[in-house]
């Protein structure tokens, strides 16, 4: 690679030659032309088929009970909780891109924020399936975990982190949904105006909430959007902090640790960015969006991934260090058991995925080669799933009394449910790119040279 860092000019945020019109045409056409690439049909078909697997698995679960999974005593939580934490974590990148990068005025967020936010919503939906279905009696858990005015004056038990989780996740979903929707309004109006069919005009018109693009509208929009960004920003930190409390509040060695909140948040962003890359790289290729999602975007996301990956690596290191330094028998055994116990392959594959693999991102060649980047992102996705597996399962399977130790293996139903949510995610995502602009049209327009010529500040 050429050693010319001083003169390195990052690739532009939008390829040269675009105008207001070309941007609007290109993005709106994906939705309105009705023509979809073959990849879309294949993707939606596979996604839908796998979603049906999820439906089947859930139906069987409701008929038989959680015993169809591999959970037992001592390992009372398994795939359901692992998947929940994994999905919630993935959601974080979307919020981070749209809210924090907005507040930090990072222009490069513009072309990826829309679908990253959609990813957040769908990931939280997938995550939301699990806390409910993992309970023994979901028909009761569905409302007993909420503080409703029961005639028996029974409230949830507010000391339990699971209750905090209910609030954290539902707040997160609500704010993410509002943020995403508010951001969509100007584009919905664009689609309304460009749609040829009456029915589409009505549908987009209703959701555009009467947007006319007046200065007043823009002013209020900017204020609302900024407020929501401010509201969403602490959520990026708080949601996974609360999720980490599900473990940190427990007394199980390997759970009961103060490093969990920052370590979980970093892990979430790490995994979230990996997932954004996993989605963005095939999308830009499939829809020919290389002009809008440029190598600059990919490189920036790779850098965030690298940094958060290093934080996560630090977390692992500290976990191992304190296992030894605390001189606590159970903590020491816990880390030893992770490394050498029956689940040792999980731990070492996790180290490979989450610590070794992201080191490739130090190289610009890797960061700017979509194929390689995609591979690294995929490995990180797997690694972060394994991390949750290691935390949930290896901590529980051997805790205090050797007589009560056990083993856990996911059953076919565990896998069906997990893969099923992947299907649900894919399906929702493909439906999203079919009916809504996957890149923010009006924000992209601020990036074209025309916007600058007119003396605007961008936004």
């Amino acid at each position, binding site marked *: 690679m050429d050693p010319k860092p001083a003169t390195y000019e990052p690739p532009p945020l939008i390829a040269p030659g675009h105008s207001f019109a070309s941007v609007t045409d290109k993005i709106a056409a994906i939705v309105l032309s009705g023509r979809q690439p073959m990849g879309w049909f294949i993707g939606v078909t596979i996604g839908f088929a796998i979603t049906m697997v999820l439906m089947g698995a859930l139906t069987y679960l409701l008929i038989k009970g959680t015993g169809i999974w591999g959970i037992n005593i001592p390992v009372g939580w398994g795939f359901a909780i692992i998947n929940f934490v994994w999905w919630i974590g993935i959601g974080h990148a979307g919020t981070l891109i749209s809210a924090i990068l907005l507040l930090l005025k990072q222009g490069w967020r513009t072309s990826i924020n829309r679908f990253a936010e959609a990813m957040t919503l769908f990931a939280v939906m997938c995550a939301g399936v699990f806390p409910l279905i993992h309970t023994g009696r979901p028909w009761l858990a569905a409302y007993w975990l909420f503080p409703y005015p029961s005639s028996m004056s029974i409230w949830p038990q507010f000391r339990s982190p699971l209750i905090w989780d209910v609030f954290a996740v539902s707040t997160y979903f609500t704010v993410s949904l509002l943020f995403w929707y508010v951001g969509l309004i100007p584009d919905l109006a664009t689609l309304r105006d460009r749609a040829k069919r009456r029915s589409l005009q009505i549908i987009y018109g209703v959701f555009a909430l009467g947007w006319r693009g007046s200065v007043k509208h823009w002013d209020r929009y900017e204020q609302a959007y900024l407020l929501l960004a401010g509201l969403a920003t602490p959520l990026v930190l708080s949601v996974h902090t609360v999720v980490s409390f599900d473990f940190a509040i427990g007394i199980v060695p390997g759970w009961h640790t103060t490093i969990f909140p920052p370590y979980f948040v970093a892990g979430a962003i790490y995994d979230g960015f990996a997932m954004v890359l996993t989605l963005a790289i095939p999308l830009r290729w499939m829809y020919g969006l290389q002009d809008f999602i440029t190598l600059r975007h990919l490189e920036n996301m790779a850098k965030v991934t690298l940094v958060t990956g290093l934080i996560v690596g630090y977390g692992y290191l500290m976990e191992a260090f304190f296992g030894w330094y605390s001189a606590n*028998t159970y903590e020491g055994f816990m880390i030893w058991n992770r490394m050498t116990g029956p689940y040792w392959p999980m731990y070492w594959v996790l180290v490979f995925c989450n610590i070794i693999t992201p080191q490739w991102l130090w190289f610009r060649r890797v960061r700017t080669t979509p194929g390689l980047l995609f591979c690294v992102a995929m490995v990180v996705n797997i690694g972060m799933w394994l991390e949750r597996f290691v935390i949930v399962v290896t901590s529980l399977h051997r805790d205090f009394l*050797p007589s009560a130790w056990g083993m856990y293996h996911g059953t076919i139903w565990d896998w069906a449910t997990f893969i099923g949510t992947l299907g649900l995610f894919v399906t929702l995502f493909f439906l999203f790119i079919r009916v809504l602009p996957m890149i923010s049209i009006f924000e992209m327009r601020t990036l074209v040279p025309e916007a600058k010529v007119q003396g605007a500040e961008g936004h």
Partner: protein
Amino acid sequence: MSASLALAGVGACTKQPPEKIIPYVRQPEDLVPGKPLFFATALPFAGVAAPVLVERHEGRPTKVEGNPQHPASLGATDAFAQADVLTLYDPDRAQTVMYRGEVRGWGDFLTASRSVLAIQKTKQGSGLRFLTETITSPTVGEQLQLLQKDFPRAKWHQWDPITRDAARAAARQSAGHAADAVYHFDQADVVVSLDADFLTVGPGHVRYTKDFSARRRVTDDKKDMNRLYVVESTPTLTGAKADHRLALKGADVEGFARALASALGAGGGAAATTASAESAKWAPAIAKELQASRGKSLVVAGDYQPASVHALAHAMNQTLGNVGTTVTYAPTIEVNPTDQVSSLRDLVQAMDAGQVEVLVIVGGNPLFTAPADFRFQDRLAKVPLAVHHSLYYDETSAYCHWNLPMAHALESWGDARAYDGTVTIVQPLIAPLYEGRTMHELFAAFIDAQNGKSGHDLVKDYWTRAHGGKVAGWTIHDTAGAPFKSADSFWKHVLHDGWIPGTAAADGGGRMTDGGKAGDASANRQPASTIQQPSSAIHQLSSVIPAASGASGGLEIIFRPDPHIWDGRFANNGWLQELPKPITKVTWDPTAWVSPRLAEQRGLNEGDLIELRYRGNAAQLPVVIVPGQPDGSVTVFLGYGRRRTGRVGSAVTGESQAFDVYKLRSSDALWFGDGLEIAKAGGKYVLARTQEHHLMEAPRSLSIVPEWEYNGYKWGMAIDLSSCTGCATCTIACVAENNIPVVGKDEVHKGRDMHWIRVDHYFAGDLENPEMYHQPVPCMQCENAPCELVCPVGATVHSSEGLNDMVYNRCVGTRYCSNNCPYKVRRFNFLLYSDWDTKSLYPLRNPDVTIRSRGVMEKCTYCVQRINAARIESEKQDRRIQDGEVVPACAAACPADAIVFGDLNDPKSRVNTLKAQQREYGLLEELNTRPRTSYLAALRNPNPELESSRGASTTEH
């Protein structure tokens, strides 16, 4: 014509059976709906009475407790007695009379038998044979005597696969007449066990556990403790309690016994040279100690050792002056003590010779359990008419013409004697659920004088006569020693207490008619033995020594009854199947035990299927590596591999048919023999174990919140690990009390067993000769409970009396409480485990305890239903609940009195006394959970002389 048509029409309709519900117009005396009644009865096991009280709710027995007044129980039971109530309701029991597979009635059988008996009568019954299990019922004894009057040439054989022939023969030789040795462990300072598992098997083991642990219990004030030496060929729970344990091959125990005897000057001389180096060191040390406690020591020989070892043990006790103090010889409790192997051999020879025309098999399953060399199945086929009276339609039933359902003990009138001779009355708690009849009733059908008499009449008649002095041998008096007022008062008294005072052997009960001197079996005390004895009565002691030494080379095979399935009879009992077996904690399957060294030599891993070849026969078993197993021996367990059993027994399929090790067992090597070859059969067998890790783990109040004050009651429990033998009776008592479901092998294997109290087992020290410890673990009812904090719906909360309550109705099943429980005592209904489909099991359930549904967490409640029952009683009388008034099911059943429960606010309560001991500690106390269940540390009392050598060999665990 029209009338007949109308009738035909009526007949053709299958009328819905009327289901009337009728309230009590006149309430039966003492019956208050919702309040259980307790009745004293007995559950015969291997012929010997296990005295019990049975809890009955609105006419249905639900729970078995020990009979606290009965000397053989003192309130405790064993696991078999606890599980018997499940057998009662077993839907797979034999339900109807069958003839060649077709349903008949008892009337058909009686008609058929009458014609057959008429023919036999003309031949004086020469073709008539009875085969029973061991019988101690005096009523049946008299019946067999009457039978002999009617059929003078009929013969009676006995076979119990877990036969005590050697003990029988040796006791007869030592005492000069048919006798039983009765031990008094509470008097013994030093106990030497020669392969005797006296804490878990054999007559009297419940009482022996009580006595042994009473003598062993150490308090801060009373520090002396008995010492137990165990020389054994298979690790047992008795061995686990030993202060010194020596693992020897089954055949080497005799050598050790001889060495010890010669060191004591009690004979045994010549063979002392065969003693190993280890036993050479042991024998003098033990002998020295035995000498030092003359009259207060005890040598016990195991039922699985030959008569010669028993004889040596008797001789040693004699020399040590123990006879009369720690061991007494009482006239045998058996109606007709006989060498059962010879008895069965005579029968099969007669069957082979075509001399048996009518064979009546009463109880047992000889086709499955007979020694392989008897080829019972082939020979049974030669019998023109075979009748099987049995609780189940089993392997033997399938080869018999008539199958007669036997009534369960809880449906029966009967009698049996306890280990010490006390006659214990069996009274029914419920009318027979099916068409079962008792053994008494069956024999009555063959006897002219008794024809048609009910079981009640037979038993009552016999004992009323015995009370009136009309049956020889009984001196009946009330507990104070005075005679009863009347026959009526006697009978009422007996039914109330469940046993007849004055009938214990020590009281002279069942004395021999000739004054207790005769050594000849035919002149034995009880009337029954006048039925002609099989010709080959008792072997000379020398010939009882296993002849297996001929087939030398290879390994030694050791046969043992399965600890919970016994000889195979409990195969269909889910509670016993799922009860983790001692030491290995395997459920649902038999295993072959090998030592770690043998496993290493042969490259065996746990769960490997091995083929065992012995004397031309083969069986397969999965291997378990058991530290403490002698290197040259493989122990196998009888009872599995059943071919015909119910839905539970056949739940484990696959290779299980090959698990039948009766196929390897021959009449001359019933318990051990050399010449076993083992080879890997290929493949692994999945074993469902509730505990995989058996090594010991290496590892006070901190609160900023003010302590909660318990002003009322404050419940707590203490468990003495020095007393606990690990017998798991607590577990099964808890299953019975708390409606705990059976989940099956697959679920146990997944780690979903539901037992609320488990018995953990640990090895410590050298794995060649480890120490073993047991620890029952119920819910600790932590004061600072980690489970309560994390439940999102508040389904587990602390009660005002300190209990950690589980609110089933509120539980949504997040399982967080279980994850956060450091003791892992919580149990989750992952699936619908409670059996809602089997109607016959409905009446089994304890109405005071909720049946849990799917998706709900459950755990030990300290038997809160019992606390509340006591509370109601105490509030009615306007007083506090007194100490000892609430006894949880586990504590009630415990034969070692290891579990004590009570009110911590009562300074004088037993539990407070125990908790004040220095050895008290809380499990994982360092987590600041502040457990309410605490333990008293296990103590050992090693002999310093042997300990020094042992310490050197102790290695890192």
